[in-house]
């Protein structure tokens, strides 16, 4: 990759990073215990797997509420506004340009930390997949109360189907997402950024002076 001069910008706030890694942990635990409940392997034992899965699931639900709160109070939701501009360019980059060492068509900026493809993916994730997974999970969890909640018309089978389909989708996302972190200027650059908050970007893009890390 032909890199210009790198400079650091503070891209991910402390809460954002905490939320990211907490959610990582929760999703991995949910995936592992969920697959065990589904009968894929034996690790904790069915009973323990169910207990952990339920507990972590409810925890995620509560934590997610804080995330939504954060998203709207900070205005960060704007980072998720979908756009089709340059999305083809991004897809082409990952499918072709990246092998030729071409620079990313949409470099990261404070005001636009997600490229168009990420925006679409994360919006679909945060607005559709995760809520569906949480909703079906919570309904699954509350199966015995469906009558009391006036939800007797629901079918556990359908609920299980959606929840399982969502799990597979999340699994696929996890694999691709983890791989994509290696596409920075060095394989661990993006992961480092999500830990420290500071992303190294190429100089030259419009970055406000105050954003730069003071030395």
């Amino acid at each position, binding site marked *: *990759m032909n890199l210009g001069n790198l400079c650091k910008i503070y891209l991910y*706030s*402390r*809460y954002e990073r*905490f*939320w990211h890694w*907490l959610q990582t942990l929760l999703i991995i635990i949910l995936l592992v215990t969920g697959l065990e*409940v*589904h*009968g894929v392997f034996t690790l904790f*034992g*069915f*009973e323990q797997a*169910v*207990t952990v899965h339920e*507990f972590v699931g*409810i*925890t995620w639900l*509560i*934590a997610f509420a*804080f995330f939504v709160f*954060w998203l709207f109070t900070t205005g960060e939701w704007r980072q998720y506004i979908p756009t089709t501009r340059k999305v083809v360019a991004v897809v082409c980059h*990952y499918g072709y340009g*990246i*092998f*030729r*060492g071409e620079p990313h068509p949409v470099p990261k900026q404070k005001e636009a930390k997600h490229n168009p493809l990420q925006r679409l993916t994360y919006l679909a994730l945060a607005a559709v997949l995760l809520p569906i997974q949480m909703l079906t999970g919570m309904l699954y969890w509350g*199966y*015995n109360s469906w009558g009391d909640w006036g939800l007797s018309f629901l*079918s*556990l*089978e359908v609920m*299980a*189907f959606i929840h*399982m*389909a969502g*799990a*597979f*989708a999340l*699994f*696929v996302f996890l*694999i*691709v997402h983890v*791989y994509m972190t*290696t*596409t920075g200027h060095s394989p661990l650059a993006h992961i480092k950024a999500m830990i420290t908050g500071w992303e190294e970007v190429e100089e030259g893009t419009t970055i406000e002076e105050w954003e730069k890390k003071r030395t």
Partner: protein
Amino acid sequence: MKHTVNVFCLALAVLTWVSATALPAGAAEPEKAPGIILADQAVKTKDLWITSDHSQHAILKQPFKSGPEVTAACLTCHNQAALQFHETIHWTWIDPATADTLRFGKAGMSVNNFCLTILSNEPRCTSCHAGYGWKDKSFDFSSQVNVDCLVCHEQTGTYEKFPAGSGHPAAKETFFAGEGKTYYPPDWNTVAQSVGRPTRENCGVCHFYGGGGDGVKHGDLDSSMTFPNKALDVHMGTDGQNFDCSRCHSTTLHNIAGRVYATPAAEDRKTLIEDDLATKITCESCHSSRPHKAGTKPNDHADKVACQSCHIPTFARVNPTKMWWDWSKAGVKKDGKPYKEVDALGKPSYMTIKGEMRWDKNVKPEYFWYNGSMSYLTLEDAIDPAQPVWITKPAGSPDDPKSRIFPFKIHAGKQPYDKISKRFVALHLFPRGPEDATAYWKHFDWDKAIANGMEYAGLPYSGEFDFVETKYLYPITHMVAPKDNVVTCIECHTAQESRMANLAGFYMPGRDSFRFLDAVGWFAVLASLVGVMLHGLGRIVSQKNRRE
């Protein structure tokens, strides 16, 4: 600062959630499940009192020569007892819930896959009738002195009815070849003066030996339940609560609570708190419908899974029970004589008079949706011999709110049926006397034995018979194990050999999956893994090429 506050709030929320769920209030001492606390209250007082010492009654000191004489003495004080008893199924052997004209019950058209029916075999079968002298159709059911008070009430344990005595004990020292045992007349006075409330031994002399031997019929009732330990039955264990049968099978006017054919043992799911005069004691009477610790998953099962399904992991845990009885193999002799072979469990695996049999111990039950009602075929019902015929069948379905998943023993076998009319047949097994020309156990002639049995039953017989495979189901409700010996989650919630494998019509996590979804899902996971690996490889190679 803003971020710190956010993180703090989240941490606080998570912590609140953790402490609310993980740490029950007052965790100082090991907590008892609510169901146990309730039940402990129900059995706080154990000692019942009695106001009469029967050994002091002069009338019981007179010389007796037969059972009816003793009964006559009992009736001088208990002048309503026999009349009450006449109204119960223990006396009539006919289902009280159906019209008398249907003759539905042991004494009527009912059939099983053990000795098929009592019709024409009364002298042998009625050794388990709480009466004296039911040797054929002429038995007087209105006679009060024909009631056998002693078999249920005597407490010496020495009172034995002769196996082929139509309900009478041996009048004199008599050898019974079928068991290779000699029977003696009871010491009438001792026995009569010992009477008290029925214990496990009283009920057990018949109910543990149904079908002609120990553990033949039920699987959860056999002689090991006379003095069980807690491991075998947590309630009846002599080292625990020491329940008698009647502790749950409560009794009004000699009518003993329990399931009777299609009539469920209990219709309502009520605790004694809701109805403290309930005449039928179920698990929930004492333990409530949410007996497990609050917030635990087993409570969520109680609406659809009967207590028995998890708390009786296996039946026949001490003595073997009979699982298979093939009448079609009967009649083979060795050196011209009937013979018997014994299996590894010490139980007969072949008998010339009965056929081939299989026994088993520690048997996992089969599970069915069950609303407490069983349906029964009779000698008069048409059957389809092309497939195994279910003589008894639990009623219920996943959609029926009264149904729960319940454990059963299935006794399977082969038995004769009328090939032309496609109905079960009655079989005359037990010889009426030395002159009997048709009894199977004397002549081993199917044609004659069936013809005679059917004639006695008053039913038509075409003259042609064959054997059909049948199943006879018993609900499993005794031998409740202590709480550390229960069916674990994974024994049902698994795709591999789930205990619930045969139950259809509902989705069960862990057992069920969507083949199509799994295939697509795993393909997508695999494809994305391979995809990113190839992509990564491409990047490495292209980068190397560019450097060169």
